[in-house]
C-alpha cells in the first residue's frame, strides 16, 4: 500500500501544480493510477466489490480535490467505479446462474471447468440484462420491464451471492472479480488512447472538398480529425485562432502545416470577421457537461456565438472520457481557472503608476486571465464522440451509459 499512496500523492501534486495538462493526458494517468490501486488493493473474502469501490473512491476524492477543474479525473474515476460495479454484478448473476447449473447437475459440482463454461455461456446475456435493469438510472426500458430492483441492489445481491456460494467458489470469484475489473480498466485505457482514431474515422463524413474550417485552441483530437480528412484527399483550408495568451493556436498551426494542410493563423479578435467565410467550426472540448454544454479553451464561446450568428455549424470533438455527468452551474466562474496575469502584462510594467498606499489599499488594477470558456448547448450543433455523432440534447443519455447513478456525487 505505501507505494500506491506515494504515487497517488505524486499525482495529486502534479495535478495541483498543473504539471499535467490536457484532459487526455490526465485521464490516462488517472486510469493507470487507479489500475495500480485496484491491483494492490487486498480484497476481503466477503464484499470485495464494495472494498474496491471504497478504495477507488478514496483515491478519486483526493484526485478530484487536487484540481476540480480537471473534470476528466472525476470522469475516469467514475468510469472505473462503474466498471467495478458492472463486473461485480455480472459475476454475481453468473454465480447465481452457476449455482442453478450446479443444482441441476449435482454430480460434477466440483468441476471448475464446467462452471467456467457456464460462466461464459450465461454471463453475457444475463449480466447484460441484469446490468440494464439494476445499474442504470430509471429509464423507459426499466419502467416497461417493471423490474423493481433499485440501483442499490448490487451490494446486497453480491453479498447474498457470496453467502450462498460455497467456500471453494469464493476464492475463484474473488480472483475473478479483481481480474475482470483490471481487464475492464485496461480496456478503458485502450479506449482513451484510441479515441482519436475513432473520432478521426468519422472526419470523412463531415469534411468535404474546398471547405474552410475554423478551429481554436490546441487539441490533438482536432489535429487527428483534420489530418484524417486530409489523408482522404480532401483539400480544405483551416483557419486557426491563435488563442492568446497561451498561443496554442500557433502550436496547432505548426503541426497542421507539418502535415501539409493549408493553414492560416488569425488573431482571436478576427474570429467574428472571418466567420462569414467559414463553413464549419471544429473545436476540441475540455469537458462536455451533462446538459450538452461544452467547456473549452478560452474564446470558444465567442466563436460559438459568431458561428450561431452566421449559421455556421459548430462541431465539438470529444472522447468519451470528456463526458462529465454533472450539470453545470455558473461554469464560467466555477469551472474555470485563472492563470497568471503575467501572461498578459509584465509584472513590473505598471508598478510605476499604481499607488498601493492610497485609499482603501486595494490595487486599482486587476488582470483577468481565465483558461476556459463555457459554451451553452444551444450554440453547439453536433458532438462527435468515439461512439458517433450526437446532439447536445442526447448527451445526458450517452452519459448514463458510462456512469452509474451512485457515483455522480463523489
Amino acid at each position, binding site marked *: 500500500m505505501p507505494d500506491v499512496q506515494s504515487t497517488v500523492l505524486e499525482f495529486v501534486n502534479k495535478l495541483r501544480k498543473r504539471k499535467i495538462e490536457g484532459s487526455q493526458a490526465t485521464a490516462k494517468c488517472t486510469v493507470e493510477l487507479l489500475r495500480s490501486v485496484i491491483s494492490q488493493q487486498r480484497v476481503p473474502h466477503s464484499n470485495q466489490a464494495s472494498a474496491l469501490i471504497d478504495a477507488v473512491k478514496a483515491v478519486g476524492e483526493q484526485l478530484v480535490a487536487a484540481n476540480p477543474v480537471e473534470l476528466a479525473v472525476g470522469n475516469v474515476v467514475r468510469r472505473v467505479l462503474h466498471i467495478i460495479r458492472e463486473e461485480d454484478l455480472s459475476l454475481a448473476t453468473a454465480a447465481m446462474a452457476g449455482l442453478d447449473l450446479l443444482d441441476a447437475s449435482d454430480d460434477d459440482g466440483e468441476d471448475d471447468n464446467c462452471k467456467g463454461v457456464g460462466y461464459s455461456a450465461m454471463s453475457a446475456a444475463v449480466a447484460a440484462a441484469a446490468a440494464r435493469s439494476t445499474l442504470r438510472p430509471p429509464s423507459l426500458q426499466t419502467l416497461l420491464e417493471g423490474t423493481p430492483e433499485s440501483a442499490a441492489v448490487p451490494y446486497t445481491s453480491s453479498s447474498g451471492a457470496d453467502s450462498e456460494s460455497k467456500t471453494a467458489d469464493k476464492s475463484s470469484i474473488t480472483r475473478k472479480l479483481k481480474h475482470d475489473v483490471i481487464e475492464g480498466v485496461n480496456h478503458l485505457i485502450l479506449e482513451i488512447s484510441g479515441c482519436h482514431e475513432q473520432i478521426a474515422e468519422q472526419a470523412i463524413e463531415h469534411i468535404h472538398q474546398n471547405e474552410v474550417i475554423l478551429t481554436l485552441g490546441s487539441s490533438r483530437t482536432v489535429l487527428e480529425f483534420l489530418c484524417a480528412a486530409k489523408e482522404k484527399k480532401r483539400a480544405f*483550408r483551416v*483557419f486557426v485562432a*491563435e*488563442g*492568446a*495568451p497561451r*498561443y496554442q493556436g*500557433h*502550436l496547432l*498551426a*505548426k503541426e497542421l*502545416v507539418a502535415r*501539409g*494542410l*493549408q*493553414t*492560416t*493563423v*488569425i*488573431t*482571436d*479578435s*478576427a*474570429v*467574428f*470577421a*472571418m466567420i*462569414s*467565410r467559414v463553413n464549419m467550426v471544429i473545436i476540441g472540448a475540455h469537458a462536455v457537461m451533462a446538459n450538452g454544454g461544452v467547456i473549452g479553451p*478560452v*474564446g470558444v*464561446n*465567442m466563436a460559438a*456565438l*459568431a458561428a450561431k*450568428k452566421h449559421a455556421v455549424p459548430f462541431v465539438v470533438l470529444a472522447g468519451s472520457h470528456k463526458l462529465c455527468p454533472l450539470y453545470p452551474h455558473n461554469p*464560467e*466562474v466555477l469551472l*474555470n481557472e485563472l492563470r497568471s496575469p503575467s501572461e*498578459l*502584462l509584465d509584472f513590473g*510594467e*505598471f508598478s510605476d*503608476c*499604481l*499607488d498601493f498606499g*492610497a485609499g482603501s489599499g486595494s490595487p*486599482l*488594477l*486587476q*488582470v*483577468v*486571465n*481565465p483558461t476556459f*470558456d463555457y459554451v451553452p448547448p444551444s450554440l453547439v450543433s453536433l458532438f462527435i464522440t468515439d461512439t458517433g455523432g450526437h446532439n447536445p440534447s442526447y448527451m445526458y443519455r450517452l452519459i448514463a451509459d458510462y456512469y452509474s447513478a451512485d457515483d455522480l456525487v463523489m
Partner: protein
Amino acid sequence: MDPRRGPLAVPKVRRVGFFTSIEPSPETPRPNRSLSGPAEAITSSSPLSDSPSGQFISPVQIPPSRHHSDNLASRAAPVPVPGPSAFRRQLANDRALHVGSYNPVDSLLGTSPPSSNGEVSEDSGSLFGFQRSDSAKLSASFPNGGFDMTLRVRAPQESEAKVAIASTSDGRKKNVEASGEGESVAAKPLKEKETKSLKEKTSKAERRAIQEAQRAAKAAAKGEGSKRAGESSRPKPSKPAKQPQPKKEAPQATSSVSEKRAVSVEKERRMDVPQTQMQYDDKSRVDKAKRRSVVEQTESKNKVELFLHLPQYERGNQLPNLSSNIFSLDTIHHAVYKVGLQHLAGDIAGDNARCIAMLHAFQEAINDYTTPPMKDLTMDLTAKINGYVSFLIECRPLSMSMGNAIRFLKNQIRKLPVDLSEPEAKASLCSEIGRFIDEKILLADKVIVQHAVTKIRDGEVLLTYGFSCVVEMILLYAHEIGRKFRVVIVDSRPNLEGQKLLRRLVTRGLDCTYTHINAVSYIMGEVTRVFLGASSIFSNGTLYSKVGTACVAMVANAFSVPVIVCCEAYKFHERVLLDSICSNELGDPDAIANVPLRNNKKHSKTMDNNKNLQFLNLMYDSTPAEYISMIVTDYGMIPPTSIPVIVREYRREDLLL
C-alpha cells in the same frame, strides 16, 4: 433674440429624417414668421427658419433630451440634434455672445448644453467661411454687424434667389450676385443656403436641376482656368482610372471635368453613387498604380487567398529607403512625406490622430504652395493633393474618416472663388482645414463626451475595447466629475493598444480590470455598459472599427449589455458594408507570427517559407447594426438606423457644398 427664441422653443419633438419628394408644402405654417410672400419664397427661405422639423416627414423622431429642455428656459439654443440652419440663423444674431463660450469642463447640466455649444461654434466657423467666400464675391465690405439684419432681409432675398434659380441658366451666379448686391449681407450665405434650402425643401428632381445649373455656371466660370491648365504638360489630375482609390476622388472628378458641361452632368450623376474601392486583384490597375508609386513595395510571397483584393505587401523594408529619400523630394511635400512615413511606421495610430496629422500636413503644404505660372490654382492644387493622397495611400490605406476629410478639402478647393488672389485662397483653405479639425474632430469629441457621460451612473462597470481616444476622454471626464465606476479594458493582439489606455486610466486613479479578448465572455457577466470607439460608421448602420469590436459587441449583445458607440459625425460614410472581408486593411503578418512564447520562440520563424502557413493580420471588422444600442455623435445620441439620415442631411452641407 426674441424672434429667435420663440420659434426655437416650439418644436417639442425634434425630427431628423428623410424628406419626402412630395413634401415642400409652401403653406406650412411658420411659427415665427407670418411671411406673406409667394409660396416659393417661403419654400426657399424655410431653412432659415428655425425648425427643420416642421418641414420634414421623418422616420426618426428624437424627443428633446432632458437637459436640453432644462436649458430651454435659460438659453435658446437647445437641440441635441439641431437643425444646422437654426443655429446658423441664431448665430447670425448673437454670434458674438456665444462663440468661444464653449467650455468642455462646464458642469454637465450647466447653462451651456454641449450640443448647442458645439453647434454654435461650428456654425460660427462656417459663417466665417461664408463670409470669406462671399466677401470675395461681394467686395468684402460688409461688417459682421450686418448679420443682425439678416433675419429680416433674408427671406425676400432668398425668394429672389430662388426665382433666379427657377429661371436657371448658365448665368445663375450672376443672378445671385445681382440679387446679393441689393441688400447688405443678405446674399452672403446665399450660395450655401440656397443649395441647402433646395436640398431640404425641394424634390430630388428639382434639386438635381439646380445642381446641374450650378455646375454649369461653375464650368463657365472656370473655362479659362481649365484651358490654361490644358496647355500645361501636367497630366489631367483626375482620370478615374489612374486613381489608386477612386472612392475618395468624387469631388475632384467633378472639378476636372469642368470643361465639358455635358460630361460634367454625367459625371455628377455618377458621383452620387459611392465609387468602388481599388481591388488589388485587378492586375492592370495595380500595375498602373505601381508605376506611379513613390513607395516601392514588394508583394508578399505568401498571400491569403481570401484577401487578394486587398494590398498585401512585405513590411518593414521600405522605411529606411523612404526616410533617406526625404531630402530629395520633388513631388511630395516634406510635411506630407513625414506624415506618410509616420503612418507607415505606425507612429501615429488612431483615426483621429491620423486624420489630424494629415490635415496639418496639408495645411503646411498649402502654405508652401505657389501656383506655377500658367496654371490654375484650383486645378493644380487639386492635382497636388491627389498626389499627396495617393502617396499616403501607398504608405497605409486611408481610413474612412481621412477619406471624408480629403473630400472636404477638395470641396473647399473647388469652392474657391476664381477671383481670389493666391495668398487669400491659401489662407482661406488653411483656415478651413483648421476649422474642420476644430469643429469636426476636437469639438465633436467634447460634445460626445458631454453626451456620453450622462450614460454613466455610479457603480457601473464599463467595458471598452482597445484604445479609443473619445472613450478615454469620456472615462476620464466621468471620473473627474466624481462618478464612481469601474472600467474593464479588453485588449487584443497584436497591437495591445489597450495597455496604453490602461496606463493612462490607472495613472489617473481609475479602477481598472484588464483582460484579453478571448476572456470577454468571462468578464461580460459583470459589465453594465460597453463603450466602443469607431473608425467609421456606414450608412447601413454597420460599425467599422478595430478588429475585435464586433466580437465584443456580439458578446455584449448575448449578455444583454447595452453597446454604446462613440463616433464623430465626420466619420460617417455613405457606403454600405455587410462583412469584414470586402473592405478591410491588412496589417503586418509578422506581428502575428512573432509570439512571446517562452519555450519555443522560433517555431514560426522556421515556418516562414512554408507555402501552407499564412498569417492574417486583419485590422478592421464590421459590427452589424443590431449589436449597437446607441451611437453617441456630435449631433446627439442616435440609433444606428439614423446614420443615413445624418449622412444625408448634415454631411452634404459640410462637405459637398
